[in-house]
């Protein structure tokens, strides 16, 4: 972890989160939607829920996770902005 440069850590975090981004929207909401529709969640077919609600909540969570982890990486590398 410490081997990576600031930019390297930046990039790695973004790539990991983008993989999740792809999985929840294009994965669960589109490609696997028909398969997931056999399950239900709170009255929703699961694939449908991911496409119309779940992926949006996921996007939100992803950005705030990114914000928190980037702030940590900033601190680790001594980034001062104040």
């Amino acid at each position, binding site marked *: 972890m410490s081997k990576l440069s*600031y*930019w390297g850590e*930046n990039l790695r975090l*973004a790539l990991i*989160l*983008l993989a999740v*981004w792809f999985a929840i*929207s*294009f994965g669960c*909401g*589109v*490609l696997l*939607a*028909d398969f997931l*529709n056999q399950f239900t*969640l*709170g*009255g*929703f*077919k699961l694939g*449908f*829920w991911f*496409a*119309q*609600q779940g*992926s*949006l*909540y996921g*996007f*939100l969570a*992803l*950005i*705030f996770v*990114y*914000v928190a982890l*980037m*702030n940590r990486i*900033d601190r680790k*590398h*001594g*980034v001062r*902005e*104040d």
Partner: protein
Amino acid sequence: MGLKTLTYIVVGLSFALYIGIAFWSKARTTGDFYVAGKHVHPVANGMATAADWMSAASFISMAGLIAFLGYDSSVYLMGWTGGYVLLALLLAPYLRRFGKFTVPDFIGERYYSDAARVVAVICLIVISFTYVAGQMRGVGIVFSRFLSVDISVGLAVGMGVVFLYAVLGGMKGITYTQVAQYCVLIFAYTVPAAFISLQVTGVALPQAAFGSEVLDGGGRLLETLDRIVTDLGFTAFTSGSKSTADIFFITLALMIGTAGLPHVLVRFFTVPRVRDARASAGYALLFIAILYTTAPAVGALARLNLTATIQTGPVFEETANLRYEDRPGWFRTWEETGLLRFQDLNGDGRIQYYNDANPEFAVRAEAEGWRGNELTVDRDIIVLANPEIAQLPNWVIALVAAGGIAAALSTAAGLLLVISAAVSHDLIKSVFARNISERAELRAGRISAAVAVLLAGYLGFNPPGFVAEVVALAFGLAAASLFPAILLGILSLRVNKQGAIAGMLSGLVFTMGYIVYFKGVFVAPFAANTPENWLFGISPEGIGALCLPRFRRSVEGRDAFAKRQDDFMRLLRSRDSGG
């Protein structure tokens, strides 16, 4: 007090508020004018971005789209929100770290080329004017529907208001009016939605309500809805009629387009620090998601309400179709506006609302004496009629009018500002008259904002024929030109100015050419499931990204170009924050 008087008062008050903010936040420097002095709090910037982003189409049309498209409408829900993840992770922090004023600024400096800057300005202006034409039309339509004034009068009033706060306040004025506009529009959207949810399911939170049981004991809302609409020959709400590949590529194209729209990108220049840029992308999506997760619930509830009002019992039972004489009050109101139209094709005095484009069902209906679908529903009615269907007081209806106008004005103002900044900063200050004074540049900014407002107004009065489609066109153009130039400029050291210029131009030309070529098809750009169409879905961003030839720098480290570029990249990726 009559509804119309009340609407005038509420809309008038909202205008007074926007104009008040304009005077309070007058821009004094070019920094104020372009990026609100970089003093905007991330939460305020999030709200402003949300208002900037959500246009009249999001506010008025989206729930209706969802109501009638069902699962297929997910392309808009995911496409118009997923782009914010790309923005937050890949673009916003680096644009802020770069720290200047505009998107063409970034491209010009990154590729160390005035030519690249000018090409970026051209792309930006084409994208923004296509988009703004649709918004100005939206302003006029909201005015004419709620205040029953002529579309052109509505347009003129809207232009006047935007003129005041965009020309006077620049980005500073726009930012704080957008914050106010967001509050107006989100209140106007969620309150009727919550009441309708409560009435139908007993759950006030729309996001949960549309998965709940309906109160009259018909089972889960979505199951009921699926059953009712399939009984009438429509596609089930929760399953789509588009192919998976189609959905996939359209969603991708909309996401990338979202992340490449200049009026959204520029908002991330206005916050004090890089970390604020990251956070404000999160807040922006939060504020957008409040509306976007409510919209599917509104769509589903409204579709159920509408269908169940007309089909009151089992299909093909003679008395199960609503008698035209017995239609509810809101039905009559919206009939007058032409948004609902009934034509008694079989002359039985009852309304038959079904999918006569479904051949199998049409045959059965024919045998039962139905002579075709008798009800035409404009999708905009879903949001506009909501408060009446929920029997909410008149002030809520008035508020919906103010909300629709707020949504259109905020987007129009944001677009007009990026246009004026591109002209005064990127053309005049950076290319044609480098030694122009700060005051003169500010004046140039105001003048170009004024010209942009007038031009946009002209486009609103004389729309280019296909208003709904031009917004989709703006996305395609943004995805094909600006997005790849910025993203590759950040991620790759090897893309140079020739590549960037060639890429932006070919993206722009290809996308425009495609639209001209498929003009007929493009009317519903993402509707028909044909290879041409999913080629379009992928091609805007595909062609743009592919066209950036990855020339190796032939002059590595040898001249000023490469040196400048290396310094620039070091700044972008470093821990140091920009100015």
